């Protein structure tokens, strides 16, 4: 058995010397170089700067310089700012309940100064000359007068030079640099009215003047095109404001990495906001695809506790349920609006809905199956949600007070024989079909489109439980391994419910004598094998979660049904397009492949195209 300290004699307890204590504290605040950047930029913002520039070298370890044109400090304040718990942002403990500034603990500067060489050059409007302070390892080495513009410039060099343990734990220079870049971007994004410049080792990473719109700032800071496909949103209610940029429904992004949250302009990671956003996005993005955006929550400072995490990355909300419900409802409404807008834009040049058919007397008119999606799983508070509790499809619910919107895609009968009035441009390899509309260029992915149509058929069949089965002249015998056969036996009921006529045929084989009318026979063999695998893996265990099983089943079936070449001619292409448009979500198939995408005229005549052609 290992023993610890077995040769030591008891030692007396004593208070740590100040230098050691501050270095330990510094370890919490200044975890890594990016923390220095964040603290300094936040100080600049609190000082009312209109222009902030950040420069760093070697991942910030060698050097970090933050310069602003904020209020600056006189000599006394400059020295005081380096003392622990010296701050201008908080008067008493009561202020902690409503923190409106970024900083408040008075920890940042002294902490940084205790683990680096810090040089501060500052002047406030009242002073004629500036002050230069040099600090190393927490000790003031030099204070002198200097010429300086109004504002503050702080240079932090040789970070952690006196904390080798910390230095050892830093990640590669590249990683640290990436953290600094991201943090600066987020700070810049949250403060579009402040001009930001980020540079490193002589290279400007981004430089953005004060921006009027968030979209413009996102493009300048994160790179051109970041905001394309995103729309500015804003919603207010119950003392909470939600604003920012939100990716329109469609194919979404492969991960959640492009979702950024800000609470009172502070970039935060918050499980609650994330889960509310993902839930709101659920019916608008395919499974395994995610929304993206920059979402700003503004809330009474008293309702939020930022003093939870040393680096203030996490926040605690006083009334979690309230915020969650608000965000969920607001985003759902926004996603709904955006989805309808996008679909309407795609379907724009289409003629209006055909009048309802007049039926011969004696026949019973059939009401089109309303495309009402499953209601949200979580019960929501009526007071907060107003009329928006329902997810996307029926537009009337979403515009209780607004005039009823013009009939869009979603209100049309599901199967219009009417073809869209688009101009068929041609096909591209890879099964892509091009159309020109008044809005721009539409690109339709044939196999994703077919898969989407098949998926919705399949789900509808499964839900209604009255599939139409096409009998086969030559029954198909599918042979399976014993394990797969056993698994498939358990799933036969689901297959039959979906319209497959299938029965065990002895010795691990199955006889298929009918397939759903929409299903291509040729894909049947492979589909049965895949379905058996899925049953075996438990993905289609219908007893446990019928909804999940249905969805998985429909997705597999649809993928098989989607295969095939691009439409051969205009009539086929338009037919496919009109069938796609009759779907509840025509934008992508169930796996997230884009089924139809619009490139607007503006995008097409954008800079890249202009440079090439004009």
């Amino acid at each position, binding site marked *: 058995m290992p023993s610890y300290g077995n040769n030591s004699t008891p030692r007396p307890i004593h208070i740590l010397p100040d230098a050691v204590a501050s270095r330990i504290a510094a370890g919490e605040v200044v975890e890594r170089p990016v923390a220095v950047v964040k603290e300094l930029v936040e100080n600049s913002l609190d000082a009312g700067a209109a222009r902030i520039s950040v420069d760093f070298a070697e991942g910030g370890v060698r050097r970090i310089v933050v310069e602003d044109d904020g209020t600056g400090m006189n000599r006394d304040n400059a020295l005081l700012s380096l003392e622990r718990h010296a701050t201008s942002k908080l008067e008493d403990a009561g202020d902690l309940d409503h923190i409106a500034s970024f900083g408040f603990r008075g920890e940042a500067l002294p902490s940084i100064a205790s683990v680096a060489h810090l040089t501060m050059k500052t002047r406030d409007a009242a002073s004629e000359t500036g002050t230069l302070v040099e600090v190393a390892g927490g000790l003031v080495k030099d204070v002198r007068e200097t010429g300086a513009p109004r504002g503050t410039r702080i240079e932090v060099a040789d970070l952690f030079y006196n904390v080798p343990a910390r230095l050892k734990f830093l990640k590669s220079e590249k990683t640290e640099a990436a953290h600094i870049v991201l943090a600066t971007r987020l700070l810049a994004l949250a403060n579009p009215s402040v001009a930001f410049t980020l540079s490193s080792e002589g290279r400007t990473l981004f430089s953005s003047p004060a921006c009027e719109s968030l979209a413009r700032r996102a493009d300048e800071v994160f790179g051109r095109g970041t905001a394309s496909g995103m729309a500015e949103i804003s919603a207010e209610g119950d003392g909470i404001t939600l604003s920012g940029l939100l990716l329109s429904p469609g194919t979404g992004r492969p991960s959640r990495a492009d979702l950024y949250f800000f609470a009172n302009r502070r970039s935060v990671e918050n499980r609650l906001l994330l889960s509310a956003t993902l839930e709101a996005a659920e019916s608008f993005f395919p499974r395994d695809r995610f929304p993206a955006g920059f979402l700003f929550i503004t809330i009474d400072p008293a309702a939020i506790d930022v003093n939870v995490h040393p680096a203030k990355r996490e926040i605690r909300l006083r009334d979690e349920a309230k915020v969650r419900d608000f965000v969920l409802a607001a985003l759902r409404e926004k996603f709904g609006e955006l989805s309808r807008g996008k679909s309407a834009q795609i379907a724009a040049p289409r003629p209006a809905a055909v009048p*309802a*058919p007049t*039926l*011969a007397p004696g*026949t*019973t*008119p*059939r009401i*089109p*199956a309303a495309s009402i999606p499953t209601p949200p799983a979580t019960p929501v508070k009526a007071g907060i949600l107003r009329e928006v509790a329902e997810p996307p499809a029926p537009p009337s619910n979403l515009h209780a007070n607004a005039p009823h919107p013009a009939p869009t895609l979603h209100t049309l*009968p*599901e*199967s*219009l*024989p009417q073809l869209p009035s688009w101009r068929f441009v041609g096909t591209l390899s890879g099964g892509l079909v091009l159309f020109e509309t008044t809005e721009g260029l539409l690109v339709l992915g044939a196999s994703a489109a077919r898969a989407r*149509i098949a998926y919705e*058929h399949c789900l*509808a069949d499964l839900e209604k*439980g*009255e*599939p*139409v*089965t*096409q*009998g*086969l*002249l*030559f029954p198909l015998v599918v042979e399976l391994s014993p394990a797969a056969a056993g698994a498939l036996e358990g799933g036969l009921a689901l297959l039959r419910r979906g*319209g497959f*006529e299938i029965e065990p045929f002895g010795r691990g084989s199955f006889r298929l004598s*009918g397939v759903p*009318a*929409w299903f*291509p*026979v*040729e*894909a049947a063999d492979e589909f049965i094998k895949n379905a058996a695998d899925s049953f075996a893996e438990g993905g289609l265990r219908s007893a446990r979660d019928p909804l999940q099983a249905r969805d998985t089943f429909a997705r597999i079936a649809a993928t098989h049904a989607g295969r095939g070449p691009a439409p051969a001619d205009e009539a086929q292409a338009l037919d496919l397009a009109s*069938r796609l448009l*009759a779907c509840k979500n025509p934008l992508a198939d169930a796996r997230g492949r884009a089924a139809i995408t619009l490139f607007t005229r503006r995008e097409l005549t954008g800079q890249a195209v202009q440079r090439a052609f004009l």
Partner: protein
Amino acid sequence: MKFTINRDHFSNGLSQVLNVVGTRATMPILGNTLIEAADGVVSLTTTNLDMSIRCRIKAEVAEGGSITLPVRKLAAIVSDLPSLEVIVECTAQQARITSGTASFRIMGIASDEFPPLPTFADKRSFVLKQEDLSGMLRSVSYAESTDEARYIMNGVFFSFAENKLTLAATDGRRLAVISREMTVGEDNAGSLILPARTVAEVMRLCGTSDNVRIAFNDRQAAFEIANGASGDTGLTDSIYLVSKVVEGNYPNYKQVIPKETDQHIRLSRETFLNTVRRASRVTSDKNNSIKVSVKSGVIDISGSSDIGESKVSLNVDYTGPEIAVAFNPQYLMDPLKALSRDEVIFEFKDELSPGVIRTPDGFMCVIMPLRIS
């Protein structure tokens, strides 16, 4: 090589072979036609490696030789030449075409790079009228499967046996069969599966009067299509088309032909077609089915979908029990459109059994019903 040729003859010849071109970028020569001139005849050949086609046109050949030229471009140029007299002069790799005031120089590829036409000892051969062959093909070819995964069904099955020629096509949901009597010697009997593309090409090339000779072995089939006497086409000799066949065993279609169908109704083909088409106007992609309900003296064909409902009635001579069967309307309309006889017989048994459309001259189409649970 040098020859003088009538513009319209040349153009007509090119249009015969134009369809059979390869699209592979790796073999540009497949986009070319092989032009060979000798003894007062110019022959044009194209191939896509699966199918090859050759026709011969009369011309004044001053100097024999051969070259390959891009066929589509050449056809466009020739059809647009200003004068009827066209002079073609070639070196190994380029051609000069002169007609009236126009002259063209076109780059080609040497003829020795052109894949040779497959030659084969035809084990079996038959002669029948072009009109009959194309009519039979038209009666069944719509039922071919277009699914590449079931390549065996991607074509029309030919069977020469028991003193008749039988053609069959199926996509697994419906089966179209037609047969006609002809003399088939015992050692001449055999079968083949003709690929869908070749079927389409044969139908296109077959005229109305002359004969067509079919020869085939296990791997290939050849069609010699005599040129029609109508008009001055410039074609001499027959058009020769040789194609790979689909190798494999065609499904045993005979076993799915219902042995007995309890009920049958004689119907005017056109009226039946119109009735089905009208009823199918309301069907949708999601609900592409119509219901055929027969009762004493009347057939009701009805459809329904989210759009609405339809019901079209047809008075018939029927006294059997009431039966209703659902079908994909397209599968009923396809044979009715392809046939030419005035009267058809519609046979059925019950809602789970296939329906059959039949004519007295050896045609039948077996259609699997849709079952609605």
